[in-house]
C-alpha cells in the first residue's frame, strides 16, 4: 500500500498528520475556554506556524494530547478524540460533545502530499475554527464560571459516544484524502440538555459566590467517574521551571513554509487528463521546504527534498519567533505567564512584552476559578469542610485528613496545575485526571483589561478560613466543660423552678 509513496512523502505525511492532530486539539480546547480568540496575521512567514494559520499552542494541552497519542498517529481504528464535558459546582457532570479525528481506509494515491494535502489540512483547520463556534457547547462555554465549568479529555482509540445521551447530532467538519487513508474530522454533540437547564436556573446565584454545600454528602473519591477531564484552562509554568513542558520547545518542529511553482512536467500533464478537476490544482510541482532558508530547485519533478527540521533548527526558529513582535510565539512560554493564584496573576500580565498588549491579555494568562484544582486526596478532605462536621458521623478519614484539624488552604495553593500533573503520574491511569481551573469571570466585571478585583474578591470569600471555634480542640474542650458543668446548672435551675414557671405564665 505504501509502495507508491516515497519515503520522504511518507515522512512528511506522518508529520502533517501529527501536527494536524495537535493543532486540532488546540483549536477545540481554545474554543471552549470561554474567551474570544484573537491571533494576528503575519505577512512574513515564520517557521512555526503550521498550516499557515496562527494557532497558539497551550503547552498543557499539547502535553495532554501527546500523552494521549503516546507516539502514535491517528490511523484506521485508532481515532483521536477530544471529549468536552460540563461539570456543575454541585459535582454533576455531563458530556457535551466529542470531536473525533479518524482515518479510514479510502486512499487517494494520486494526491500530492506536500502541497495539496497540506493545503487541504489547512482549510480543514479553518473549518474547525468556524464549526467550534457553532455547536451548542460554545455558548455554554462562554458562560462558564461560577455555576459550571467546561472540561476536556483527550483519548485515543475507539470513539465513545454513549455519554452523549439520546438523539445526539453529528456534524462533519471535513475530510482530506491522503495516500494512506482519508482523514475525517467530525463532532458528535448532545442535544438533550434538559437536565442541565433545569439545574442551572433553579439555583439562584449566591451573593458572595460561596458554595452552599452544608448538607450535601461529600463526594467520595469512588464516586468520581473514572474519566473526568481537564478543565479548559491552563496555567503556564514559570520560565525557569523546566517542568513537564521542557520538551515542548524541542518538539516544536519547523513546519513547511516554502512552496514552489513550476510548469507541469510531462508526467503530470499526461496524468492531468485522467484526473478529476479536483486534482488539477495538484498538478503543479509544489514541494515545500522545511526551512525557508533553503531554496528549492523547481522544475525537477520529484527532485526536491523536504528537509526535515532538526531540533536545533526547530528551537532556533522557535526562539526567533519569540522575539518577533508580530507573532507572540506559538507556545505560551513567551507570554511570561504566571503560574498561580490570583495575586500573581497581575504580575504575570504585566510581565508580558508591551509590544503585544492585546495578545498578552488575550493570551491564556490566568486563571483560578471557583473550583480549584487539588489533588484527589485533598478534595476528599476539603469536602468534609462542613460546619459541625465534628458532630457528623465520621469514620471516613483519619484525623490527619480531617479539615477540622488541618484546614485546607485558602486561597488555593499555588500551581495546583503542576501538583495535579505530577500526581497524575502517580495515579497511573492517564484518564484519572485532576481538574485545573477554568477562568472565573464574575458577573458585571469588566473584561480583561484591568486586574479583576471583583474576581479576586469573590475568590477570597469563597474560601474563607476556618472559624477558630469550629476547630476540634476548642469544640471538644468546650463540650467537655459543658458536660461537666451540667449537673451544677441543673441544680440551680431546680432551685429556681418557681421563678421559671412564673416567667412562663407571664409570657402566655
Amino acid at each position, binding site marked *: 500500500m505504501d509502495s507508491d509513496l516515497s519515503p520522504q512523502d511518507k515522512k512528511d505525511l506522518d508529520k502533517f498528520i501529527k501536527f494536524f492532530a495537535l493543532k486540532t486539539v488546540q483549536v477545540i480546547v481554545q474554543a471552549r475556554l470561554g474567551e474570544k480568540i484573537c491571533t494576528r496575521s503575519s505577512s512574513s512567514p515564520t517557521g512555526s506556524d503550521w498550516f499557515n494559520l496562527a494557532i497558539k499552542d497551550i503547552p498543557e494541552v499539547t502535553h495532554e494530547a501527546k500523552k494521549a497519542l503516546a507516539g502514535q498517529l491517528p490511523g484506521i481504528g485508532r481515532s483521536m478524540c477530544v471529549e468536552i464535558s460540563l461539570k456543575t459546582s454541585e459535582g454533576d457532570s455531563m458530556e457535551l460533545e466529542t470531536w473525533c479525528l479518524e482515518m479510514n481506509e479510502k486512499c487517494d494515491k494520486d494526491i500530492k502530499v506536500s*502541497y495539496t494535502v497540506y493545503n487541504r489540512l489547512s482549510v480543514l483547520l479553518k473549518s474547525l475554527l468556524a*464549526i467550534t463556534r457553532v455547536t451548542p457547547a460554545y455558548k455554554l462555554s462562554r458562560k462558564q464560571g461560577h455555576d459550571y465549568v467546561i472540561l476536556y479529555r483527550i483519548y485515543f482509540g475507539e470513539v465513545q459516544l454513549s455519554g452523549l445521551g439520546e438523539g445526539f447530532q453529528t456534524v462533519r467538519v471535513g475530510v482530506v484524502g491522503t495516500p494512506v487513508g482519508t482523514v475525517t474530522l467530525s463532532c458528535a454533540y448532545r442535544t438533550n440538555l434538559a437536565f442541565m437547564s433545569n439545574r442551572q436556573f433553579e439555583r439562584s446565584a449566591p451573593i458572595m459566590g460561596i458554595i452552599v454545600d452544608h448538607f450535601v454528602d461529600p463526594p467520595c473519591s469512588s464516586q468520581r467517574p473514572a474519566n473526568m477531564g481537564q478543565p479548559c484552562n491552563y496555567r503556564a509554568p514559570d520560565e525557569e521551571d523546566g517542568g513537564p513542558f521542557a520538551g515542548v520547545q524541542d518538539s516544536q518542529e519547523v513546519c513547511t513554509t516554502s512552496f514552489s511553482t513550476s510548469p507541469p512536467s510531462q508526467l503530470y500533464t499526461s496524468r492531468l487528463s485522467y484526473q478529476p478537476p479536483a486534482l488539477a490544482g495538484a498538478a503543479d510541482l509544489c514541494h515545500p521546504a522545511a526551512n525557508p532558508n533553503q531554496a528549492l530547485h523547481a522544475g525537477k519533478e520529484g527532485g526536491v527534498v523536504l528537509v526535515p527540521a532538526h531540533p536545533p533548527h526547530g528551537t532556533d526558529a522557535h526562539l526567533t519567533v519569540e522575539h518577533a513582535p508580530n*507573532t507572540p510565539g506559538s507556545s505560551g512560554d513567551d507570554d511570561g505567564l504566571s503560574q498561580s493564584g490570583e495575586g500573581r496573576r497581575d504580575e504575570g500580565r504585566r510581565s508580558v512584552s508591551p509590544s503585544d498588549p492585546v495578545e498578552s491579555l488575550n493570551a491564556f494568562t490566568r486563571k483560578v476559578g471557583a473550583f480549584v484544582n487539588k489533588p484527589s486526596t485533598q478534595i476528599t478532605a476539603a469536602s468534609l469542610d462542613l460546619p459541625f462536621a465534628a458532630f457528623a458521623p465520621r469514620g471516613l478519614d483519619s484525623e490527619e485528613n480531617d479539615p477540622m484539624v488541618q484546614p485546607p488552604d485558602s486561597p488555593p495553593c499555588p500551581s495546583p496545575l503542576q501538583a495535579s500533573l505530577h500526581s497524575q503520574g502517580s495515579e497511573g491511569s492517564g484518564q484519572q485526571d485532576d481538574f485545573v481551573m477554568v477562568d472565573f469571570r464574575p458577573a458585571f466585571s469588566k473584561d480583561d483589561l484591568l486586574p479583576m478585583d471583583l474576581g479576586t474578591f469573590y475568590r477570597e470569600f469563597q474560601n474563607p478560613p476556618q472559624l477558630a471555634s469550629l476547630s476540634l480542640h476548642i469544640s471538644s474542650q468546650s463540650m467537655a466543660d459543658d458536660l461537666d458543668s451540667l449537673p451544677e446548672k441543673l441544680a440551680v435551675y431546680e432551685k429556681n423552678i418557681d421563678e421559671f414557671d412564673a416567667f412562663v405564665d407571664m409570657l402566655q
Partner: protein
Amino acid sequence: MNCRSEVLEVTVEARQVEEAMLALLHTILLHRSTGKFHYKKEGTYSIGTVGTLDIDCDFIDFTFVRVSSEELDRVIRKAVSEFKDALNNSGSDGMGQISLEFYQKKKSRWPFSDECIPWEVWSIKVNVVNLANEQERQICREKVGEKLGEKVINVVEVINRHEYLPKMPTQSEVDNVFDTSLKDVQPYLYKITYQITDSLGTSVSTTMRRLIKDTLAL
C-alpha cells in the same frame, strides 16, 4: 470548468441584516484566503500566516470567526452596508440577495479587456421581516443564531468537498488569481454584488453592480 454556485437563504430582522451578512461572507472568505505569498528565486514561494478573530454579534446569538485583517474587514463592511442601505430604501418587502463571486482573470490580447472567469459564486438571499414586540425579537435572536450556524455548516460542507480551486500561480500570474492588494492576507480574487428584489417579487428591478475591489472596469 464549470462555475460552482451555492445559494444560502436567511430570514432576519432589519437590524440583523448587517451582522448576518458579515458572518456568512467572512466565513467564506476565511476559507478562501491564504497568507501573503512571497516569491523567491527559482519559482519558490512561501506563505504568510493567517490569524483569526472571534466576532460576537450584537443582535444575533452568534459568534463567527473571521480573518484577522482590518483592511479586508473594512471592505466587506462597506459592501454589506451598501447592501443594507439599498434594502432599507427599496420598499417594504425587504428581499434581496448579495453575491460573493470568486473569479480568475484571463489576459486577453489587445483590444479586448481581460476576462473575469468566475469559478465559485455564493449567493445569500435575504428576507427581512418586521417583528411586533420584544419577545418575538428575543426569539428571533436565538433562531437566527441557530440558522446562521446551519449556514456555516453548509458552507463548510461545500468547501470541504475540495472541488476546483485555481492552481497556484507563478509570480507573474499571481494577480490573476489572488487579490494581492491587502497587506496581511491574500484572498482569492473576489467581487461582491447585490440586487434588491422589488415587492412584486420580480428580480432585478434595481441591479447595481459594484466592483468593490480594484478590478478592471467592464
